């Protein structure tokens, strides 16, 4: 049975409106090349934001994702360059790096999770700390410059970002399958129900015999996993990482989650809303590049306005749905 909830359609209405704006601004917007670019580009923030949906639903927040992505990218590049000395098969090197990346992501999530639950430090402070740590580590590893993947490896690896299946770029496939999995995990499993419970009231959840610490740690580990997946498709794009990689991703991811209708105070999450949120954010940037109607100096203002408008539309629909 399909019940149409107006509140849940809010982000998609906003997405359609921004899309129409794009069509109106420049005819090049609808070209298949541009649409493929937008989708592929949104997959980084999108994948990270899918993970953030879990953390925020559990009542936490993760500010470290951008730095974590930069740090894992840097480690992957150093690892692949080092393996290149001893292993001839480039596909094996890439496989090892991919597994190492996932392991690092899970571990980083575990660290954030343990510090928030076992050490009982506010998630905001924990992840603010790890954010600074990962950012400095990657700058240190790169000597303040840029880490570059060896050309021979990147020639093979770059197809992960630039290649496509049925005309749709691989990153988009990854993004949407991950979102599908996340949707099932959040809405169709016991873990998902517990996640909602922990986010709405930790005490009540605890008294209902839910292992709240475990749920929260899992949420941070899902976030870490998502960051590593985003990294795996980010590295082949430019084959480099630096102190600038992933700057402000955390804010964009959180914005995507909130635009998508997840409650910032926790207890309620929407994976597909987050996907729409990430697409809206990418579309705004794309549209601003396709027009010279707006002064360059005002790009930030336009972005801010559209983000606020998108949330207003969603709230309006929420009010209508209630009455």
């Amino acid at each position, binding site marked *: 049975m399909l019940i149409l909830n107006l509140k849940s359609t809010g982000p998609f209405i906003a997405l359609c409106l921004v899309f129409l704006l794009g069509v109106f601004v420049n005819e090049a917007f609808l070209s298949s*090349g541009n649409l493929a670019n937008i989708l592929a*580009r949104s997959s980084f923030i999108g994948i990270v934001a899918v993970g953030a949906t879990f953390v925020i639903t559990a009542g936490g927040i993760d500010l470290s994702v951008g730095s974590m992505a930069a740090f894992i990218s840097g480690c992957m590049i150093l690892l692949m360059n080092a393996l290149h000395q001893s292993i001839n098969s480039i596909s094996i090197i890439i496989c090892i790096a991919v597994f190492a990346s996932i392991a690092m992501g899970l571990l980083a999530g575990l660290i954030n999770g343990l510090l928030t639950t076992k050490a009982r430090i506010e998630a905001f402070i924990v992840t603010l700390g790890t954010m600074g740590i990962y950012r400095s580590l990657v700058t240190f590893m790169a000597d303040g410059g*840029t880490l*570059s993947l060896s050309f021979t490896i990147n020639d093979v690896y770059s197809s992960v970002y630039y290649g496509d299946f049925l005309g749709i770029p691989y990153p988009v496939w990854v993004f949407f399958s991950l979102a599908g999995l996340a949707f099932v995990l959040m809405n169709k499993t016991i873990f998902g129900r517990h996640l909602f419970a922990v986010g709405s009231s930790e005490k009540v959840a605890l008294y209902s015999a839910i292992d709240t610490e475990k749920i929260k740690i899992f949420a941070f580990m899902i976030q870490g996993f998502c960051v590593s997946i985003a990294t795996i498709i980010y590295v082949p*794009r*430019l084959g480099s990482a*630096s102190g600038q990689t992933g700057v402000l991703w955390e804010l964009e991811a959180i914005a995507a989650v909130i635009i998508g209708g997840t409650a910032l105070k926790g207890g309620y999450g929407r994976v597909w809303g987050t996907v729409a949120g990430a697409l809206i954010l990418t579309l705004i940037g794309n549209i601003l590049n396709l027009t010279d109607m707006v002064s*360059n*100096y005002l790009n930030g203002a336009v972005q801010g306005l559209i983000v606020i408008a998108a949330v207003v539309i969603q709230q309006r629909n929420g009010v209508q749905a209630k009455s």
Partner: protein
Amino acid sequence: MEHRVKLSARLEQIFVFGFLVWALQMPSFAQTLGVSVPAATHGWTGGLNFHAEETKDRLENQYPELKIVLVTASNASEQANDLEDLLTIHQIDALVILPFESAALTGPVRNVERSGVFVTVVDRGLTDPSIHDFYVAGNNSEMGRVSANYIKSRLDQDGKIVILRGMPTVIDEQRFDGFMSSIVDTGIEVLDSQYANWNRDDGFTVMQDFLSRFPKIDAVWAQDDDIAIGVIQAIRQARRQDEMFVVGGGGMKDIIQRVKRGDKLTPVDVLYPPAMISTAMELTTIKLLADAPIEGEYILSSPLITEQNADDYYFPDSPF
């Protein structure tokens, strides 16, 4: 009570004695040079930090009586705090500073100068130029002009170009104005210009959008080598590398290498060397130790790097 007084007097003696021992063991420095630069947040500042560290080691080895204190700051107010520390704790005799922002640091640097410290300003001039004793800088507007002149000659005074700018700062304005002033009377049309924040990712996305928007582009002025790397990748993805060429700026080793190889997509680069910090540190040291006349301004030119002279500008060990 009496006991306590005795104890504190005794402690005092111990402290004084300890301090004397410590002070005697400290090598006495004739001169202290403070160096304050922005932290390595992107390629160019990374190169800057690399050259500053290297110059510090070399100068300290060469002149045992010289002590160099190098501090990095990630924003303007942090840099202002650094200046206070350099003055009160390290009691510097000379300061080499690359200000984060011109206006915000004019006051703090003036305070340093008033206490009798020799001040060398690098790259970003202060709002009040009477403060510095010595000024070392690249020439941003010349960098813009050199880039424009190359594009003009390659396109035969006529064609369509796009520009990727850095961030809204004085440096970016000067480069942009220098560039635009050199193409006013030509048939060269600037299709659009957008900020790419001096990084690869934004260079990539902005160029992707330019490529979807404009069916014909003859040249790209990226004005920074990090941006240029992103631009090149976007052009390759669109398979339009035979249609246009890219002019970056700075002198990043990856780009210089391409120029050296005779890459058609990046035929040239325009120098804006982060090693200018070494020039400033060396000359300020000479002022401190030899008291040779070091005054006025030292402006580095921004030569065009081509396949022929690329070897002279290629530093494989630098992170930039």
